[in-house]
């Protein structure tokens, strides 16, 4: 019997999902559902979400199948363009809460331009990246986040490119909230997604997923449990991580909020333009 959460937020008639056994995407999709559920039940009016006003936008790839399984307004778009679609949705109706689910390839390779410009504009979107370091849907090609030296079907001799740190990329482009979660640290990841949705502006939560089928097998990372345990040992809360020496940081990553600022949000600023223009035209 599916859990209450699944009953409530998943489109049960479209399950089982297409993800492989051991894939981290199911856990992350649950995290998104729990984060939204908690905000729907939130009594603080400022942060209360109306489920009917939530739109899940996704691109193409393993990650992006999540939109279809989640019982909200959902739109599964084209490869790389999820953030651009989301920009149109949010600006056309700023009352909507727009959550983008995307992958490392979808948002930082083919969609990289939309990512940095949405971050720069500070449109009030929440981007949840299912970052599994690989193109899973097409069978294991290396992505912009595959670490140097590791393998993919298109990097049989090892990757020589420098990988992206997607959270840093977004922060550098002007995102006003960035954070990192992963598949293992469920509670922290839920809280970070919640914080991202609550944040007024462009927020990005870079969530390390696991892909035992392609990335794991190609790079001898062990089975799904081994990969999860590796996240358990590597993901350290930001407070503790900051105190580590460079030597101690090797092989570790920070879990938590990475950057946060209060810069002007696009739709709020645009409303001021509308108000002024309409007043000048005598329409208000």
């Amino acid at each position, binding site marked *: 019997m599916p859990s209450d959460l699944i009953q409530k937020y998943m489109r049960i008639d479209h399950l089982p999902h297409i993800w492989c056994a051991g894939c981290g995407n199911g856990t992350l999709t649950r995290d998104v559902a729990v984060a939204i559920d908690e905000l729907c039940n939130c009594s603080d009016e400022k942060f209360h979400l109306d489920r009917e006003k939530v739109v899940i936008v996704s691109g193409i790839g393993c990650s992006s199948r999540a939109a*279809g399984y989640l019982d909200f307004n959902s739109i599964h*778009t084209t490869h790389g363009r999820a953030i*651009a679609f989301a920009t149109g949705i949010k600006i056309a109706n700023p009352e909507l809460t727009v959550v983008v689910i995307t992958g490392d390839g979808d948002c930082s390779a083919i969609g990289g331009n*939309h990512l940095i410009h949405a971050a720069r504009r500070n449109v009030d979107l929440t981007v949840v990246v299912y970052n599994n370091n690989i193109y899973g849907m097409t069978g294991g090609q290396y992505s912009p986040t595959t670490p140097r030296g590791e393998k993919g079907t298109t990097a049989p001799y090892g990757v020589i490119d420098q990988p992206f740190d997607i959270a840093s990329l977004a922060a550098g482009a002007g995102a006003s909230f960035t954070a990192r979660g992963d598949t293992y640290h469920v509670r922290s990841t839920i809280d970070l997604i919640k914080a991202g949705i609550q944040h007024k502006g462009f927020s990005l939560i870079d969530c390390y997923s696991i892909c035992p089928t392609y990335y794991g097998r190609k790079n001898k990372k062990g089975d799904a449990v081994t990969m999860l345990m590796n996240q358990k040992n590597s993901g350290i809360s930001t407070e503790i991580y900051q105190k580590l020496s460079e030597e101690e940081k090797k092989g570790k990553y920070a879990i938590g909020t990475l950057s946060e600022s209060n810069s002007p949000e696009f739709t709020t600023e645009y409303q001021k333009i509308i108000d002024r223009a309409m007043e000048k035209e005598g329409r208000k």
Partner: protein
Amino acid sequence: MSFKTVLMQGNEACVEGAIAAGMRFFAGYPITPSTEIAEGCAARLPQENGHFIQMEDELGSIAAVIGASAAGVKSMTATSGPGFSLMQENIGYACLAEVPCVIVDVQRSGPSTGLATAPSQGDYQQARWGTHGDHPMIAISPASVAETYSLAIRCFNLSEKYRTPVIFLMDEIVGHMREDVKIPAPDSYEIVNRRVAGNDGAYKFVYRVPEGQWVPGLKPFGAGERYNMTGLIHDYSGFPTNSTDVAQREVTRLMEKVLKNKDDIVEIQEYAMEDAEYAVICFGGTTRAALEAVKAAREKGLKVGMWRPVTVWPYPDEKLRERLPQLKGALMVEHNYGQMLREVERVAAGRIPIDFIGRINGTVIPPQEILTKIEEALQHAQ
């Protein structure tokens, strides 16, 4: 009918016509010779409680437009050749997911960066076949500034009615021309709004077409009907399926919703065709020169008429075919290497000879050149 007369540029008329049609969202990226449309929208939309956004590229522009339309707002983008090429993938998305939107292509001379400021009609076939896969397409091409205003409204009306992207195929000549436009009173033209879904609140049936309709209704995101939209072949629920039966049914419906409604969608303009033995065929930016040449030919006593598709896709096969029995020949005049010529020859199917004048160097075809060709052809025919 009350109206006011305003001197405006074709690109401005496009903006004003679109706003009159109810367009309240525009996303675009600067490109000559369409940029004035973006500039006009940036200035005008906030006055109308609408939104303008300059996106990072044309890929993002068309994506934002589809997103905004799914959120319930009539949306448009405008571009030119290179940007039109970049938009093609998502034009196909809008076809399959059935999201109404208008894509303005102010054509310039290509290929590639080409002659960036020079006129052309070289995107004619791309407008039809630019995106991959079998898909329906409606494209409309204006010949004057006044027409640009009224046909922009028509583009939105058809897009909303048939839930499909419509290409407004302008060109540099019409886009940058200035002339008087008699702005019609708002109650003098029809405005069509998309039918909003009535699917009993169940997302399961959002793509099921009600009896007697060609398209399902479209409820905006946030209006209380949680459904899924996708660019994958989808069933009635909007959820992806690999069913070959569903693919056959749905792609057929997409094609037929346009092809079986050509009586409603297709519009042509004819001049002096009643007794014409020879037709000059033109569209958009070649129309004026063709008309002038036909008038001059008539003054010389030649039985020549002008035949012009206003709706350039789907092609007005039936209407052209009706004229074939009276014709000894026809002359296709277009600013490209012979793109509409293919359609005319296909329809004529060898029954009459088709002459051709094209232009691919960024200059325009003058009336005298057309007149000379008419005279040669008619001499030859006698």
